[in-house]
């Protein structure tokens, strides 16, 4: 036993000494490397800033001529600039990247064995908004690594080529689907040209696809599809899809949504659907729905009564009068939601603040 202890002590002493040296060495090497990188990147960074400040009119050749080491050190700053500048400066910067062969290398790397390299390449192509890469990125939506698919979705959104819509929707219809919210976000970035595709996909057999289409249509403000969305609200067999349809009608804000939403609000429907319908009527500004909403103020389902009250506070004097009637008529235990909505109205918050003070891009 003592012999084992002795050997163990010797081994431990060596490993501890090696680790201590390794910790100190890691610090020394990292600090030296950071200094070197910083020195290398300093000049290219200045050139880059001058270039974008000048809308990319001068200096492109100088940027292309920067040595590989210095460019690599400055590349994170250059990529960050890509996300911050728009218009001519963006196009000029993309041109510099293209001339340096960054886009070509990234397209090649989409077929790399490493998922990390594939994802990085997809990110680069998205940052460059390279339309030629859309086909390759669409192929990446079937990648076996979820993280690669996610980056491809975001890249396609940034590029904004409407032709990618079907492939994005198809990526939802698999056993390991891409995240619905990311796909919705990407579809919205593709712009109004995808409305026809999204409307057609409302008949898709996969409920997740239908829900994503509805969310995207709502965010795109596709008012022309309101009738179609109303039919989904009425007839779809999936509750989650019907809830998404109610929310979409609220966002679309057309009068065509009022009747189907009021219908969905009626007792007997699932509480989650009724709450979504109440909220949507408020967002839609449906003054004609005041009576329907007022009738829900005493509903035993918290969310239904709550959303109805807060929808009424968005509906101007008629909504306010309905809330006041409820407070006057109900005993203190029953008029709670109306009282809460009136109190919020009194401090001037008809619409929720989208972001906190101090938060900004």
């Amino acid at each position, binding site marked *: *036993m003592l012999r084992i*202890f002795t050997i163990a002590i010797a081994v431990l002493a060596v490993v501890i000494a090696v*680790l*201590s040296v390794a910790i100190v060495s890691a610090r020394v090497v*990292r600090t030296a490397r950071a200094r070197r990188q910083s020195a290398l990147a300093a000049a290219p960074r200045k050139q880059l800033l001058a270039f974008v400040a000048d809308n990319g009119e001068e200096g492109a050749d100088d940027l292309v001529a920067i040595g590989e080491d210095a460019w690599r050190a400055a590349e994170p700053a250059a990529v960050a600039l890509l996300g911050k500048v728009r218009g001519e400066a963006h196009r000029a910067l993309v041109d510099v990247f293209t001339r340096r062969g960054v886009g070509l290398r990234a397209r090649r790397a989409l077929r790399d064995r490493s998922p990390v390299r594939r*994802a990085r390449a*997809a990110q680069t192509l998205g940052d460059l908004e390279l339309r030629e890469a859309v086909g390759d990125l669409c192929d990446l939506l079937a990648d076996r690594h979820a993280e690669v698919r996610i980056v491809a979705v975001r890249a396609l959104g940034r590029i904004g080529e409407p032709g990618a819509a079907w492939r994005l929707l198809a990526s939802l219809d698999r056993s390991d689907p891409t995240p619905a*919210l990311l796909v919705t*976000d990407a579809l919205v970035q593709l712009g109004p040209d995808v409305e026809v595709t999204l409307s057609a996909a409302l008949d898709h057999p996969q409920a997740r696809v239908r829900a994503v289409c509805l969310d995207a249509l709502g965010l795109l403000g596709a008012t022309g599809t309101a009738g179609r969305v109303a039919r989904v609200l009425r007839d779809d067999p999936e509750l989650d899809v019907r809830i998404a349809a109610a929310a979409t009608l609220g966002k679309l804000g057309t009068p065509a949504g009022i009747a189907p939403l009021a219908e969905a609000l009626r007792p007997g429907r699932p509480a989650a659907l009724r709450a979504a319908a109440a909220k949507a009527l408020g967002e839609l500004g449906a003054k004609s729905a005041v009576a329907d909403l007022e009738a829900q103020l005493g509903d035993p389902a918290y969310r239904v009564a709550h959303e109805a009250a807060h929808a009424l506070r968005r509906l101007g004097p008629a909504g306010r009068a309905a809330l006041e009637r409820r407070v006057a008529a109900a005993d203190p235990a029953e008029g709670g939601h109306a009282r809460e909505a009136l109190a919020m109205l009194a401090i001037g918050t008809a619409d929720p*603040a989208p972001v906190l003070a101090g938060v900004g891009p």
Partner: protein
Amino acid sequence: MIEEWTRDLLRITDVAIFVYFVLLNSSYLVLIVLAGQEFFRHLRRTTFAGADDMFRSPLTLPVSVIVPAYNEGPGIIAAVQAMTALRYPRYEIVVVDDGSTDETFALLQQQFDLVEVPKVVPAEVPTRGRVLSVHVARANPETLVVVRKENGGKADALNVGLNVARHPLVCMVDADSVLDPDALLSVAKPFGDDPLRVAACGGVIRIANGCTVVGGRVVDVRMPRSWLLRVQVVEYLRAFLMGRTGWSRLGGLVVISGAFGVFRRDLLVRIGGLDHDTIGEDAELVVRLHHYLRERGEDYRVVFVAEPVSWSEAPSTMRVLGRQRRRWHRGIAEILSKHRRMILNPRYGRIGMVALPYYVLFELLAPFVELGALVLLPLGLWIDAINVDFAIRFALVAYGYGLLVSLTALFIEEVSFHRYPRAADLARGLVAAVIENFGYRQILAAYQVYGAWGAWRGKQAVWGAMQREGFSSPPPAVVGPPPASEPVPAADVTPSRD
């Protein structure tokens, strides 16, 4: 006259204790190596993590940040102001004043111009302390809510916060925590990337003492001045940052700190919120979540993100630290007792077969064995069961292995996040890793044993309070010399694991 069999028994026991130490440290080492792999993996992915896209997206899931507060006067304003400056597209802050007897509410009311609203609070999860009033900030009524309630403890405050919360994700944060600006984006990100499976996500807690906090942000990271705190820094790195990351990689994470964790609200409602009667309510919540989801055969993940982090004030006196550790250990004992049916039950997968048995063997029992070694080794020497050579080498190997584990953690920290930029702090970390073995571990083991004993006896749990120094807004301030006075015993919001 001591019988030979007694000597044999002591000899065998001492060897068994040695084997236990080796296994214990080996398990830590495995977890730390796994954490190292995870950090490497994480760092390779930062360029395409998509934090900016998430921040810009109108579809990012909104979060309700629940902040339980009991007598948090010194730091509550800075904490809430810091939370309002988090980089996240849509969130609300719900501060639950759990019957504070100090000026916590008055300060909030004055600073944020709070207006009382007759809010209807649903009873989706059970609560005990009555809600006295609900207030909103006049300038941002949808984003800052302050609830005043009768004192009912941290779990009760969190449950009230859950009922008030409007968003699909809830983030529990201690009132003394300072979050990195991107912390909320990072812990909420797994829910966006894997929405069908992620049920909860824990964030890292690091020690704020010694750091410079300006405007609710840690702007300069430094080692604290006291060695007691420096040792805790190393301990947090090893046990919480690396240990939990390792468990997350193994799919066996059972502790998400109440000081910083995000959960799906609907799931917390389904399992009835936090348990009022367990002192480690945060860990119990996660174990119960596993219990619930495993029993229903649901495909889910409980994950942990290593960066960015939440900074928390750590106890700066041995007395307060001891009480904290006593409470934590009591929490472990209560949770393992409450969920004992899960232990070694294949129905609960890795949680039942690996994580919980590990907690019994290497978390619950470790302080007992440590103290046992302190008693039995000298006893063995006294009755000649072992000789001095054996005892010295035993101690060198056992503590040397512990030191190796801590140094490995420091090495991984240095090559991954390297949050302490000063060379002197690095040296202090190395020294702290050594001196941790002399007195610190042994004293804490005694407190831990006391905590487990309290759980076993079913004694009424008493929360100790930690007197807070608070975080200063400009001019820059350094957090925390040791508190001068004895804290008032009451329910506090000291993190129950971190």
